[in-house]
Protein backbone atom coordinates (compact mmCIF):
# COMPACT_ATOMS: atom_id res chain seq x y z
CA UNK A 1 0.00 0.00 0.00
CA UNK A 2 2.67 2.46 1.05
CA UNK A 3 4.82 1.56 -1.94
CA UNK A 4 1.89 2.03 -4.28
CA UNK A 5 1.35 5.51 -2.90
CA UNK A 6 5.04 6.39 -2.96
CA UNK A 7 5.30 5.27 -6.59
CA UNK A 8 2.95 8.06 -7.62
CA UNK A 9 5.66 10.62 -6.90
CA UNK A 10 8.39 10.77 -9.51
CA UNK A 11 12.06 10.60 -8.60
CA UNK A 12 12.67 14.05 -10.10
CA UNK A 13 10.06 15.62 -7.85
CA UNK A 14 11.50 13.79 -4.91
CA UNK A 15 15.02 15.08 -5.55
CA UNK A 16 13.83 18.62 -6.20
CA UNK A 17 11.93 18.66 -2.94
CA UNK A 18 15.05 17.59 -1.04
CA UNK A 19 17.23 20.16 -2.83
CA UNK A 20 14.62 22.83 -2.14
CA UNK A 21 14.46 21.91 1.53
CA UNK A 22 18.23 22.10 1.94
CA UNK A 23 18.23 25.45 0.14
CA UNK A 24 15.47 26.62 2.46
CA UNK A 25 17.42 25.54 5.52
CA UNK A 26 20.50 27.41 4.28
CA UNK A 27 18.45 30.54 3.56
CA UNK A 28 16.86 30.39 6.98
CA UNK A 29 20.26 30.02 8.64
CA UNK A 30 21.49 33.10 6.78
CA UNK A 31 18.34 34.97 7.77
CA UNK A 32 18.88 33.99 11.40
CA UNK A 33 22.47 35.24 11.28
CA UNK A 34 21.27 38.52 9.80
CA UNK A 35 18.58 38.81 12.46
CA UNK A 36 20.97 38.35 15.38
CA UNK A 37 23.20 41.09 13.97
CA UNK A 38 20.21 43.34 13.28
CA UNK A 39 18.77 42.81 16.73
CA UNK A 40 22.04 43.72 18.46
CA UNK A 41 22.47 46.79 16.29
CA UNK A 42 18.87 47.99 16.73
CA UNK A 43 18.80 47.34 20.47
CA UNK A 44 22.14 49.08 20.80
CA UNK A 45 20.87 52.15 18.98
CA UNK A 46 17.68 52.18 21.05
CA UNK A 47 19.79 52.23 24.21
CA UNK A 48 22.22 54.85 22.84
CA UNK A 49 24.95 52.29 22.30
CA UNK A 50 26.69 51.27 19.11
CA UNK A 51 26.13 47.52 19.18
CA UNK A 52 28.83 45.27 17.71
CA UNK A 53 31.53 47.24 15.90
CA UNK A 54 34.81 45.32 16.15
CA UNK A 55 34.15 42.26 14.01
CA UNK A 56 34.28 43.38 10.40
CA UNK A 57 32.66 46.50 8.93
CA UNK A 58 29.79 47.61 11.22
CA UNK A 59 30.25 44.40 13.16
CA UNK A 60 28.82 42.40 10.27
CA UNK A 61 30.94 39.35 11.05
CA UNK A 62 29.63 39.17 14.62
CA UNK A 63 27.02 36.43 13.93
CA UNK A 64 29.68 34.27 12.30
CA UNK A 65 31.95 34.72 15.28
CA UNK A 66 29.03 33.81 17.56
CA UNK A 67 28.19 30.71 15.54
CA UNK A 68 31.80 29.54 15.58
CA UNK A 69 32.04 30.13 19.30
CA UNK A 70 28.89 28.13 19.96
CA UNK A 71 30.02 25.21 17.80
CA UNK A 72 33.41 25.11 19.47
CA UNK A 73 32.04 25.43 22.98
CA UNK A 74 31.96 22.48 25.31
CA UNK A 75 28.61 20.74 25.32
CA UNK A 76 27.71 19.90 28.90
CA UNK A 77 25.03 17.35 29.74
CA UNK A 78 24.43 17.48 33.49
CA UNK A 79 24.96 14.20 35.31
CA UNK A 80 21.51 14.13 36.91
CA UNK A 81 19.60 15.05 33.75
CA UNK A 82 17.34 12.74 31.80
CA UNK A 83 19.78 12.25 28.92
CA UNK A 84 17.36 11.19 26.19
CA UNK A 85 14.90 14.02 26.84
CA UNK A 86 17.75 16.49 27.21
CA UNK A 87 19.06 15.51 23.79
CA UNK A 88 15.82 15.30 21.89
CA UNK A 89 14.19 18.51 23.17
CA UNK A 90 16.14 21.04 21.04
CA UNK A 91 15.73 18.80 18.00
CA UNK A 92 11.94 18.80 18.40
CA UNK A 93 11.89 22.57 18.79
CA UNK A 94 13.93 23.26 15.68
CA UNK A 95 12.26 20.63 13.50
CA UNK A 96 8.80 22.01 14.21
CA UNK A 97 10.10 25.53 13.57
CA UNK A 98 11.54 24.47 10.22
CA UNK A 99 8.59 22.35 9.12
CA UNK A 100 6.18 25.25 8.89
CA UNK A 101 8.46 26.87 6.31
CA UNK A 102 7.61 24.15 3.81
CA UNK A 103 4.43 25.96 2.91
CA UNK A 104 5.13 29.63 3.56
CA UNK A 105 5.27 31.20 0.10
CA UNK A 106 7.73 33.98 -0.78
CA UNK A 107 5.98 34.67 -4.08
CA UNK A 108 3.32 32.94 -6.14
CA UNK A 109 5.82 30.26 -7.20
CA UNK A 110 8.61 30.52 -4.61
CA UNK A 111 7.32 27.88 -2.24
CA UNK A 112 8.60 24.39 -1.62
CA UNK A 113 5.21 22.72 -1.51
CA UNK A 114 2.00 24.67 -1.42
CA UNK A 115 -0.61 22.97 0.77
CA UNK A 116 -4.33 23.46 0.44
CA UNK A 117 -4.55 23.43 4.20
CA UNK A 118 -1.51 25.71 4.60
CA UNK A 119 -2.80 27.91 7.40
CA UNK A 120 -4.18 24.98 9.37
CA UNK A 121 -0.94 23.05 8.94
CA UNK A 122 1.17 25.98 10.12
CA UNK A 123 -0.91 26.47 13.24
CA UNK A 124 -0.90 22.76 14.00
CA UNK A 125 2.86 22.43 13.69
CA UNK A 126 3.77 25.63 15.49
CA UNK A 127 2.32 24.11 18.67
CA UNK A 128 4.72 21.15 18.64
CA UNK A 129 7.56 23.43 19.71
CA UNK A 130 5.89 23.76 23.12
CA UNK A 131 6.45 20.05 23.67
CA UNK A 132 10.16 20.55 23.09
CA UNK A 133 10.33 23.35 25.63
CA UNK A 134 8.51 21.35 28.29
CA UNK A 135 10.76 18.35 27.64
CA UNK A 136 13.83 20.57 27.85
CA UNK A 137 12.70 21.94 31.18
CA UNK A 138 11.85 18.53 32.57
CA UNK A 139 14.84 16.73 31.10
CA UNK A 140 17.44 19.06 32.55
CA UNK A 141 16.33 18.06 36.06
CA UNK A 142 16.69 21.60 37.25
CA UNK A 143 14.19 23.50 39.36
CA UNK A 144 14.41 26.59 37.20
CA UNK A 145 14.15 24.42 34.14
CA UNK A 146 10.98 22.66 35.29
CA UNK A 147 9.42 25.94 36.31
CA UNK A 148 10.33 27.46 32.97
CA UNK A 149 8.94 24.49 31.07
CA UNK A 150 5.60 24.73 32.88
CA UNK A 151 5.49 28.46 32.34
CA UNK A 152 6.19 27.90 28.66
CA UNK A 153 3.30 25.44 28.40
CA UNK A 154 0.89 27.81 30.17
CA UNK A 155 1.92 30.87 28.19
CA UNK A 156 2.13 29.30 24.77
CA UNK A 157 -1.18 27.44 24.90
CA UNK A 158 -2.95 30.56 26.19
CA UNK A 159 -1.67 32.74 23.36
CA UNK A 160 -2.30 30.02 20.80
CA UNK A 161 -6.05 30.64 20.93
CA UNK A 162 -5.98 34.27 19.74
CA UNK A 163 -3.65 33.22 16.91
CA UNK A 164 -6.05 30.48 15.84
CA UNK A 165 -9.08 32.76 16.03
CA UNK A 166 -7.46 35.57 14.07
CA UNK A 167 -6.23 33.10 11.47
CA UNK A 168 -9.80 31.81 11.15
CA UNK A 169 -11.19 35.30 10.61
CA UNK A 170 -8.64 35.88 7.85
CA UNK A 171 -9.52 32.49 6.33
CA UNK A 172 -13.15 33.61 6.33
CA UNK A 173 -12.31 36.82 4.50
CA UNK A 174 -10.32 34.93 1.87
CA UNK A 175 -12.60 31.87 1.92
CA UNK A 176 -9.48 29.71 1.77
CA UNK A 177 -6.79 28.18 3.92
CA UNK A 178 -4.29 28.24 1.08
CA UNK A 179 -1.73 30.97 1.78
CA UNK A 180 -1.38 31.86 -1.90
CA UNK A 181 -5.12 32.30 -2.26
CA UNK A 182 -5.16 34.41 0.89
CA UNK A 183 -2.65 36.78 -0.69
CA UNK A 184 -4.61 36.79 -3.96
CA UNK A 185 -7.71 37.68 -1.99
CA UNK A 186 -6.04 40.94 -0.95
CA UNK A 187 -5.93 42.36 -4.48
CA UNK A 188 -8.62 44.95 -3.79
CA UNK A 189 -7.55 45.96 -0.32
CA UNK A 190 -5.12 44.41 2.12
CA UNK A 191 -6.82 42.85 5.11
CA UNK A 192 -5.31 45.19 7.67
CA UNK A 193 -7.78 47.81 6.41
CA UNK A 194 -10.77 45.65 7.29
CA UNK A 195 -9.28 43.80 10.28
CA UNK A 196 -6.94 46.17 12.17
CA UNK A 197 -7.99 44.41 15.38
CA UNK A 198 -6.85 41.10 13.90
CA UNK A 199 -3.44 42.49 13.00
CA UNK A 200 -2.82 43.83 16.49
CA UNK A 201 -4.05 40.66 18.21
CA UNK A 202 -1.94 38.53 15.89
CA UNK A 203 1.11 40.70 16.54
CA UNK A 204 0.76 40.56 20.34
CA UNK A 205 -0.02 36.85 20.41
CA UNK A 206 2.78 36.21 17.95
CA UNK A 207 5.25 37.95 20.23
CA UNK A 208 4.06 35.74 23.06
CA UNK A 209 4.26 32.62 20.89
CA UNK A 210 7.92 33.13 20.11
CA UNK A 211 8.68 34.38 23.62
CA UNK A 212 9.97 37.79 22.66
CA UNK A 213 10.10 40.54 25.25
CA UNK A 214 7.72 41.63 26.86
CA UNK A 215 6.48 38.02 26.90
CA UNK A 216 9.77 36.25 27.69
CA UNK A 217 8.39 34.98 30.98
CA UNK A 218 9.36 31.38 30.47
CA UNK A 219 13.08 31.99 30.12
CA UNK A 220 13.24 35.29 32.01
CA UNK A 221 16.95 35.57 32.84
CA UNK A 222 16.47 37.72 35.91
CA UNK A 223 13.82 35.43 37.44
CA UNK A 224 14.50 31.83 36.47
CA UNK A 225 17.92 32.24 34.84
CA UNK A 226 16.95 31.01 31.40
CA UNK A 227 14.14 28.58 32.28
CA UNK A 228 14.26 25.50 30.05
CA UNK A 229 17.63 26.56 28.62
CA UNK A 230 19.42 26.86 31.94
CA UNK A 231 21.47 23.66 31.61
CA UNK A 232 22.12 23.93 27.88
CA UNK A 233 25.37 25.08 26.37
CA UNK A 234 27.20 25.01 23.08
CA UNK A 235 25.51 23.48 20.06
CA UNK A 236 22.34 22.46 21.93
CA UNK A 237 21.79 25.97 23.22
CA UNK A 238 22.39 27.50 19.82
CA UNK A 239 19.76 25.20 18.31
CA UNK A 240 17.11 26.64 20.64
CA UNK A 241 17.97 30.13 19.53
CA UNK A 242 18.07 29.10 15.90
CA UNK A 243 14.49 27.90 16.40
CA UNK A 244 13.50 31.09 18.19
CA UNK A 245 14.69 33.30 15.35
CA UNK A 246 13.18 31.03 12.70
CA UNK A 247 9.88 31.31 14.56
CA UNK A 248 10.16 35.07 14.84
CA UNK A 249 10.73 35.26 11.12
CA UNK A 250 7.78 32.91 10.51
CA UNK A 251 5.46 35.03 12.63
CA UNK A 252 6.54 38.16 10.77
CA UNK A 253 6.08 36.38 7.44
CA UNK A 254 2.61 35.18 8.46
CA UNK A 255 1.63 38.68 9.48
CA UNK A 256 2.73 39.96 6.09
CA UNK A 257 0.85 37.19 4.26
CA UNK A 258 -2.34 37.40 6.29
CA UNK A 259 -2.68 41.15 6.70
CA UNK A 260 -0.17 43.15 4.68
CA UNK A 261 -0.72 41.73 1.21
CA UNK A 262 2.21 39.34 1.05
CA UNK A 263 4.40 39.90 -1.98
CA UNK A 264 2.01 42.24 -3.78
CA UNK A 265 3.42 45.67 -4.49
CA UNK A 266 4.01 48.07 -7.37
CA UNK A 267 6.90 48.02 -9.91
CA UNK A 268 8.20 44.47 -9.41
CA UNK A 269 6.67 41.40 -11.03
CA UNK A 270 7.19 37.67 -11.20
CA UNK A 271 9.65 36.21 -8.73
CA UNK A 272 11.19 39.63 -8.09
CA UNK A 273 8.16 40.28 -5.89
CA UNK A 274 10.01 38.39 -3.20
CA UNK A 275 11.84 41.66 -2.56
CA UNK A 276 8.53 43.21 -1.50
CA UNK A 277 7.83 40.22 0.69
CA UNK A 278 11.22 40.31 2.42
CA UNK A 279 11.05 44.08 2.74
CA UNK A 280 7.70 43.91 4.51
CA UNK A 281 8.86 41.05 6.71
CA UNK A 282 11.93 42.97 7.81
CA UNK A 283 9.80 46.01 8.61
CA UNK A 284 7.65 43.83 10.88
CA UNK A 285 10.81 42.37 12.44
CA UNK A 286 12.08 45.88 13.14
CA UNK A 287 8.83 46.64 14.96
CA UNK A 288 9.32 43.47 17.02
CA UNK A 289 12.83 44.60 17.99
CA UNK A 290 11.50 48.07 18.75
CA UNK A 291 8.91 46.56 21.09
CA UNK A 292 11.69 44.60 22.78
CA UNK A 293 13.63 47.81 23.35
CA UNK A 294 10.59 49.64 24.74
CA UNK A 295 8.43 47.51 27.01
CA UNK A 296 9.33 45.96 30.35
CA UNK A 297 8.60 42.28 30.96
CA UNK A 298 5.12 41.38 32.19
CA UNK A 299 4.51 39.46 35.40
CA UNK A 300 3.12 35.97 34.87
CA UNK A 301 -0.30 36.66 36.42
CA UNK A 302 -0.63 39.78 34.27
CA UNK A 303 0.39 37.72 31.28
CA UNK A 304 -2.23 35.03 31.81
CA UNK A 305 -4.93 37.53 32.72
CA UNK A 306 -4.17 39.49 29.57
CA UNK A 307 -4.42 36.35 27.48
CA UNK A 308 -7.73 35.13 28.86
CA UNK A 309 -9.50 38.37 29.68
CA UNK A 310 -8.47 40.53 26.73
CA UNK A 311 -7.01 38.51 23.90
CA UNK A 312 -9.39 35.53 23.88
CA UNK A 313 -12.67 37.49 24.06
CA UNK A 314 -11.43 40.02 21.54
CA UNK A 315 -10.30 37.36 19.09
CA UNK A 316 -13.70 35.68 19.47
CA UNK A 317 -15.28 39.00 18.68
CA UNK A 318 -13.18 39.33 15.56
CA UNK A 319 -14.41 35.94 14.32
CA UNK A 320 -18.04 36.87 15.02
CA UNK A 321 -17.82 40.29 13.41
CA UNK A 322 -16.15 38.86 10.31
CA UNK A 323 -18.81 36.16 10.03
CA UNK A 324 -21.67 38.62 10.40
CA UNK A 325 -20.12 41.04 7.93
CA UNK A 326 -19.75 38.32 5.34
CA UNK A 327 -23.05 36.61 5.92
CA UNK A 328 -25.16 39.75 5.60
CA UNK A 329 -23.04 41.23 2.78
CA UNK A 330 -22.31 44.41 4.61
CA UNK A 331 -20.00 46.95 2.95
CA UNK A 332 -16.29 46.68 3.74
CA UNK A 333 -16.17 49.86 5.77
CA UNK A 334 -18.59 48.41 8.32
CA UNK A 335 -16.09 45.69 9.21
CA UNK A 336 -13.35 48.34 9.41
CA UNK A 337 -15.54 50.31 11.82
CA UNK A 338 -16.36 47.30 14.01
CA UNK A 339 -12.77 46.13 14.06
CA UNK A 340 -11.45 49.60 14.87
CA UNK A 341 -13.91 49.83 17.75
CA UNK A 342 -12.56 46.55 19.10
CA UNK A 343 -9.03 47.79 18.63
CA UNK A 344 -9.88 50.94 20.58
CA UNK A 345 -11.04 48.80 23.50
CA UNK A 346 -7.80 46.78 23.45
CA UNK A 347 -5.75 49.95 23.20
CA UNK A 348 -7.62 51.54 26.10
CA UNK A 349 -7.10 48.48 28.30
CA UNK A 350 -3.37 48.35 27.55
CA UNK A 351 -3.07 52.10 28.08
CA UNK A 352 -4.82 51.93 31.44
CA UNK A 353 -2.75 48.94 32.57
CA UNK A 354 0.49 50.56 31.49
CA UNK A 355 -0.17 54.09 32.69
CA UNK A 356 -2.20 53.52 35.85
CA UNK A 357 0.73 52.31 38.01
CA UNK A 358 3.07 55.04 36.80
CA UNK A 359 0.36 57.65 37.35
CA UNK A 360 -0.12 56.36 40.89
CA UNK A 361 3.60 56.58 41.55
CA UNK A 362 3.68 60.11 40.19
CA UNK A 363 0.72 61.10 42.38
CA UNK A 364 2.27 59.71 45.54
CA UNK A 365 5.55 61.40 44.75
CA UNK A 366 3.85 64.76 44.12
CA UNK A 367 1.89 64.48 47.37
CA UNK A 368 5.01 63.69 49.38
CA UNK A 369 6.91 66.56 47.83
CA UNK A 370 4.04 68.93 48.55
CA UNK A 371 3.98 67.70 52.16
CA UNK A 372 7.70 68.20 52.58
CA UNK A 373 7.57 71.61 51.00
CA UNK A 374 4.84 72.50 53.49
CA UNK A 375 6.79 71.19 56.45
CA UNK A 376 10.11 72.84 55.67
CA UNK A 377 9.11 76.53 55.84
CA UNK A 378 7.13 75.74 58.99
CA UNK A 379 10.16 74.08 60.62
CA UNK A 380 12.48 76.93 59.67
CA UNK A 381 9.81 79.44 60.82
CA UNK A 382 9.66 77.69 64.22
CA UNK A 383 13.45 78.05 64.58
CA UNK A 384 13.23 81.81 64.21
Amino acid at each position, binding site marked *: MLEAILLTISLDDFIWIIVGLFAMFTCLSIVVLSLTWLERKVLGRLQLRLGPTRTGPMGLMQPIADALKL*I*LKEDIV*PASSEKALFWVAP*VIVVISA*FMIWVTIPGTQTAVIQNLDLGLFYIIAFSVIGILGLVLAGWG*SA*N*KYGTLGGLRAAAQLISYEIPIIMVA*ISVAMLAQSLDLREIVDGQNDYIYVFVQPLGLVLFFIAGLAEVGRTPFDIYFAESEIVGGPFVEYSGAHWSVFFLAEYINTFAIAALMVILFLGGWSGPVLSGNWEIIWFLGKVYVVIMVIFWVRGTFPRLRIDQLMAFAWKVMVPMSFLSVVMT*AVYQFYDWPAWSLTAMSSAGLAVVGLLIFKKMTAPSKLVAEVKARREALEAQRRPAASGGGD
Partner: protein
Amino acid sequence: MTPDTFSVELFTQNWTAVALSAVVAAMAIGGMFAASRMLSARRHSEEKLTTYECGIPPSPYTWSNINVRFYIFAILFLIFDVEAVFLFPWAVIFMQEKINEANTLPFYAMMMFLGVLAFAIIYAWKKGVLEWQK
Protein backbone atom coordinates in the same frame (compact mmCIF):
# COMPACT_ATOMS: atom_id res chain seq x y z
CA MET B 1 -10.06 21.55 -1.24
CA THR B 2 -13.18 20.36 -2.97
CA PRO B 3 -13.54 16.59 -3.36
CA ASP B 4 -13.26 16.59 -7.14
CA THR B 5 -9.72 17.99 -7.08
CA PHE B 6 -8.47 15.32 -4.71
CA SER B 7 -5.86 13.03 -6.20
CA VAL B 8 -3.49 10.52 -4.69
CA GLU B 9 -0.59 12.13 -6.58
CA LEU B 10 -1.25 15.55 -5.15
CA PHE B 11 -1.80 14.16 -1.69
CA THR B 12 1.45 12.17 -1.81
CA GLN B 13 3.42 15.09 -3.17
CA ASN B 14 2.09 17.46 -0.51
CA TRP B 15 2.77 15.27 2.44
CA THR B 16 6.01 13.81 1.13
CA ALA B 17 7.39 17.33 1.21
CA VAL B 18 6.20 17.73 4.76
CA ALA B 19 7.70 14.44 5.90
CA LEU B 20 10.96 15.15 4.10
CA SER B 21 11.21 18.56 5.75
CA ALA B 22 11.41 16.85 9.13
CA VAL B 23 14.11 14.52 7.82
CA VAL B 24 16.11 17.35 6.29
CA ALA B 25 15.92 19.45 9.43
CA ALA B 26 17.00 16.47 11.53
CA MET B 27 19.92 15.84 9.20
CA ALA B 28 21.05 19.46 9.26
CA ILE B 29 20.85 19.62 13.03
CA GLY B 30 22.56 16.24 13.31
CA GLY B 31 25.38 17.56 11.15
CA MET B 32 25.71 20.56 13.40
CA PHE B 33 25.83 18.40 16.53
CA ALA B 34 28.39 16.11 14.92
CA ALA B 35 30.59 19.07 13.95
CA SER B 36 30.31 20.44 17.45
CA ARG B 37 31.16 17.07 18.94
CA MET B 38 34.29 16.73 16.80
CA LEU B 39 35.49 20.29 17.25
CA SER B 40 34.59 21.20 20.80
CA ALA B 41 36.66 20.70 23.90
CA ARG B 42 35.47 17.94 26.23
CA ARG B 43 36.96 18.14 29.67
CA HIS B 44 34.26 17.09 32.06
CA SER B 45 34.63 17.12 35.79
CA GLU B 46 32.22 16.13 38.50
CA GLU B 47 31.73 19.74 39.54
CA LYS B 48 30.97 20.83 36.02
CA LEU B 49 28.25 18.22 35.61
CA THR B 50 26.26 19.18 38.68
CA THR B 51 22.90 20.85 38.26
CA TYR B 52 22.97 24.62 38.35
CA GLU B 53 21.40 26.17 41.42
CA CYS B 54 22.84 29.64 41.84
CA GLY B 55 26.31 28.27 42.62
CA ILE B 56 25.40 26.41 45.81
CA PRO B 57 25.40 22.59 45.88
CA PRO B 58 21.99 21.48 44.57
CA SER B 59 19.44 20.21 47.02
CA PRO B 60 18.84 16.46 46.69
CA TYR B 61 15.51 16.56 44.92
CA THR B 62 16.10 17.89 41.47
CA TRP B 63 12.50 17.22 40.50
CA SER B 64 10.90 18.90 43.46
CA ASN B 65 7.16 19.32 43.74
CA ILE B 66 5.99 22.35 41.89
CA ASN B 67 2.62 23.96 42.34
CA VAL B 68 1.01 23.61 38.95
CA ARG B 69 -1.35 26.53 38.68
CA PHE B 70 -1.87 26.08 35.00
CA TYR B 71 -3.92 22.93 34.70
CA ILE B 72 -7.25 24.71 34.54
CA PHE B 73 -5.92 26.88 31.76
CA ALA B 74 -4.90 23.67 30.03
CA ILE B 75 -8.45 22.32 30.29
CA LEU B 76 -9.86 25.57 28.94
CA PHE B 77 -7.31 25.45 26.14
CA LEU B 78 -8.45 21.97 25.23
CA ILE B 79 -12.04 23.18 24.84
CA PHE B 80 -11.03 26.06 22.61
CA ASP B 81 -8.65 23.97 20.57
CA VAL B 82 -11.31 21.40 19.80
CA GLU B 83 -13.60 24.24 18.87
CA ALA B 84 -10.93 25.54 16.46
CA VAL B 85 -10.98 22.19 14.68
CA PHE B 86 -14.69 22.75 14.00
CA LEU B 87 -14.19 26.38 13.04
CA PHE B 88 -11.54 25.88 10.37
CA PRO B 89 -13.66 23.88 7.91
CA TRP B 90 -16.69 26.00 8.71
CA ALA B 91 -14.82 29.22 7.96
CA VAL B 92 -14.23 28.29 4.33
CA ILE B 93 -17.58 26.63 3.68
CA PHE B 94 -20.36 28.69 5.23
CA MET B 95 -20.49 31.33 2.49
CA GLN B 96 -20.51 28.70 -0.26
CA GLU B 97 -23.42 27.01 1.48
CA LYS B 98 -25.30 30.28 1.61
CA ILE B 99 -24.64 31.30 -2.00
CA ASN B 100 -24.86 27.94 -3.73
CA GLU B 101 -27.45 26.11 -1.69
CA ALA B 102 -29.24 28.99 0.05
CA ASN B 103 -28.46 27.10 3.23
CA THR B 104 -28.18 29.46 6.18
CA LEU B 105 -28.07 26.73 8.79
CA PRO B 106 -24.23 26.54 9.10
CA PHE B 107 -23.97 30.20 10.00
CA TYR B 108 -26.67 30.16 12.69
CA ALA B 109 -25.50 26.82 14.07
CA MET B 110 -21.95 28.08 14.47
CA MET B 111 -23.11 31.34 16.03
CA MET B 112 -25.03 29.29 18.57
CA PHE B 113 -21.97 27.15 19.21
CA LEU B 114 -19.86 30.26 19.74
CA GLY B 115 -22.53 31.55 22.08
CA VAL B 116 -22.23 28.42 24.20
CA LEU B 117 -18.47 28.84 24.30
CA ALA B 118 -18.79 32.50 25.21
CA PHE B 119 -21.04 31.40 28.05
CA ALA B 120 -18.38 28.88 29.07
CA ILE B 121 -15.67 31.49 29.30
CA ILE B 122 -17.94 33.89 31.20
CA TYR B 123 -18.75 31.08 33.63
CA ALA B 124 -15.05 30.30 34.08
CA TRP B 125 -14.37 33.98 34.65
CA LYS B 126 -17.11 34.28 37.26
CA LYS B 127 -15.86 31.14 38.97
CA GLY B 128 -12.49 32.81 39.38
CA VAL B 129 -10.69 30.25 37.26
CA LEU B 130 -8.91 32.96 35.33
CA GLU B 131 -7.52 34.55 38.47
CA TRP B 132 -3.98 33.70 39.52
CA GLN B 133 -4.48 31.15 42.29
CA LYS B 134 -2.64 31.78 45.50
